[in-house]
């Protein structure tokens, strides 16, 4: 198959094609926006009700003091990881195929973290006191407990959000300068402000390139730490099914896995609607599919290790928890997760499937479902069958928590839809970098 454009685009083509995505949107765009905004409004309404009447509006109980909110929190944090991975890790590895998707992926990261960041607030019984978790001097002389994984979360996630945002904005600056120079009127004035007076001079590029590399170098350990810290929310606890040293790498891998699926879910329609086939090519799809496949295999390995550990340890509580999860009330969720995360991606062993947009799309959706359920399976069934048989119990979602979780998806997509119309969702500069630089004397050739 060939969606390869006949001619390689020139620098000017890149500007034109990318700027075209920012043209005033049509009715369809606004229709989508309205739908998303409506769902979000519903979510906000449910949240208001929950704040008013209490967290009991959500389906939580003893023993599931945590349920859908933390599930979705971990899910969104995980989604964010692929963005940083693409923009930082692949940058360090000089994987040039990243360039056409990294901007969208990075935006996805920020929006995912922004979405995830809401959940600890939504989850807290007294969200109006959530600021107690921040270390700031106060007249009570009180400080947070730095031994608590939740405080680690606060630090990890706020650092992650800050660094990702800085990284994202820094990457945007030259592109906004290009926007500035291509636009007129009020847009121009806004872009001029955001571009910080970027001109592309050699001195600017010099520090920019160095700084960019350093950001990538900082973001790489950060991204690994963030999901490790999130995993320690569970691993540091005593609950059977949580208390495991396996969790950090397991979570990081799962995060990348789900993140790539989300990238595919976002990028494939963008490519379709904006006609970006020249930039997001089959080789990009192929690379993404391969990454999904690899992370899926690694994840399968972790699943097996988890089961093996529970069985081999001989620990009564772990075994009981495992057998319960596999066979009882929530078994369907577990088996669904195994199917989505371990079986479905295996189709990418077929070369054709790796570049087939529909196949990728379907598998990615399955992976997202599977990964949401992975977190669900870690949280809800593990808590359902803990140490103390007296309190074993079944969690039933309520309209409130379901509504808020759905609303969080709307919030994410609302941000993303807004982004693609306001900012270049393809990096103008980096796409140009991958093109052969214009040469009058073709003997020099494109040697990179």
């Amino acid at each position: 198959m060939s969606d390869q454009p006949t001619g390689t685009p020139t620098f000017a083509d890149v500007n034109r094609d990318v700027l075209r995505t920012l043209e005033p949107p049509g009715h369809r765009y606004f229709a989508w926006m309205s739908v998303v905004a409506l769902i979000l409004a519903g979510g906000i309404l449910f949240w208001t009700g929950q704040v008013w009447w209490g967290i009991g509006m959500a389906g939580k109980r003893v023993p599931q003091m945590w349920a859908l909110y933390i599930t979705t929190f971990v899910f969104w944090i995980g989604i964010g990881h692929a963005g940083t991975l693409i923009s930082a890790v692949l940058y360090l590895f000089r994987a040039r195929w990243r360039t056409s998707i990294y901007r969208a992926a990075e935006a996805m990261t920020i929006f995912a973290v922004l979405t995830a960041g809401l959940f600890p607030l939504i989850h807290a019984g007294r969200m109006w006191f959530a600021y107690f978790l921040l270390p700031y001097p106060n007249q009570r002389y009180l400080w947070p407990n730095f031994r608590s994984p939740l405080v680690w979360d606060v630090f990890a996630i706020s650092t992650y959000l800050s660094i990702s945002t800085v990284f994202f904005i820094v990457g945007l600056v030259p592109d906004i300068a290009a926007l500035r120079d291509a636009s007129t009127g009020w847009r121009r004035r806004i872009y001029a402000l955001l571009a910080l007076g970027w001109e592309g001079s050699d001195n600017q590029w010099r520090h920019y390139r160095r700084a960019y590399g350093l950001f990538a170098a900082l973001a790489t350990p950060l991204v690994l730490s963030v999901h490790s810290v999130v995993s320690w929310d569970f691993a540091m606890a005593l609950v059977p099914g949580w208390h495991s040293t396996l969790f950090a790498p397991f979570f990081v891998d799962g995060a990348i896995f789900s993140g790539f699926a989300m990238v595919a879910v976002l990028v494939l329609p963008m490519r379709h609607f904006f006609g970006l086939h020249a930039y997001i090519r089959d080789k990009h799809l192929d690379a993404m599919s391969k990454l999904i496949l690899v992370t899926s295999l690694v994840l399968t390995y972790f699943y097996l290790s988890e089961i093996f550990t529970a069985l081999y340890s001989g620990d009564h509580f772990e075994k009981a928890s495992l057998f319960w999860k596999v066979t009882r009330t929530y078994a369907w969720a577990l088996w669904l997760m195994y199917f989505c995360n371990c079986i479905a991606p295996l189709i990418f062993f077929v070369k054709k499937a790796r570049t087939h947009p529909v196949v990728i799309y379907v598998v990615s959706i399955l992976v997202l479902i599977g990964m949401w359920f992975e977190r669900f399976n870690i949280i809800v069934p593990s808590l359902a069958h803990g140490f103390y048989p007296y309190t074993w119990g079944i969690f039933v979602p309520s309209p409130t928590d379901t509504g808020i979780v759905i609303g969080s998806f709307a919030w994410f997509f609302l941000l993303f839809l807004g982004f693609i119309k306001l900012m270049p969702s393809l990096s103008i500069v980096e796409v140009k970098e991958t093109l052969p630089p214009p040469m009058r004397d073709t003997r020099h050739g494109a040697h990179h």
Partner: protein
Amino acid sequence: MGAKAGVGALGVVLLAVLIFVAVSSWSRQPAVARPSVQPIDFPHVVHVQTYKIDCQYCHSDARRSEYAGLPSVERCMGCHKITGAQLPEIKKLAEYFARKEPIPWVRVNKLPEFTYFPHKAHVRASVKCQTCHGEVEKMTTFAAAPGPRLANDLLNLAGFRPAPPPLTMGWCVDCHREQNAREDKKAPLDCVACHH
């Protein structure tokens, strides 16, 4: 041009220091308390300064109860049947007594519900009333400005370290720590001693 920038920078630094000093010294001033409006204009100053009445003569529960207690109307009348009986404010008192009605004093000092403060233990440790309630003996009408204030928190946030306002947790803790360090007392610092 370099020199100019240097002078400018120095100026900015000096200004910052000046502002810091000004704000922090202001923030360490005790807040000015507004006198309360009471059903009977009761002057502590007269009772304490002029007649040298001990605090616990009227607030007699302080040594044995969580509450300091207010004097019963009968106790007030014990003196005021004769003393100053013709004064308009005392007449109000006599009316209350005649009606067998308690005087609706307006509360000035108030701790949050989740804070347990026993007067008894503090009296036993010979803490002076004025330590917490201010110079009551000089007050014509009782006034206090206790409790956390937003300005205080904001200053803390900005890195200043103003003295905590009275009857806030930091202020209690300061005193407890001081006592423990200085006099080998056992002022509790356990959270649940006050919050349970």
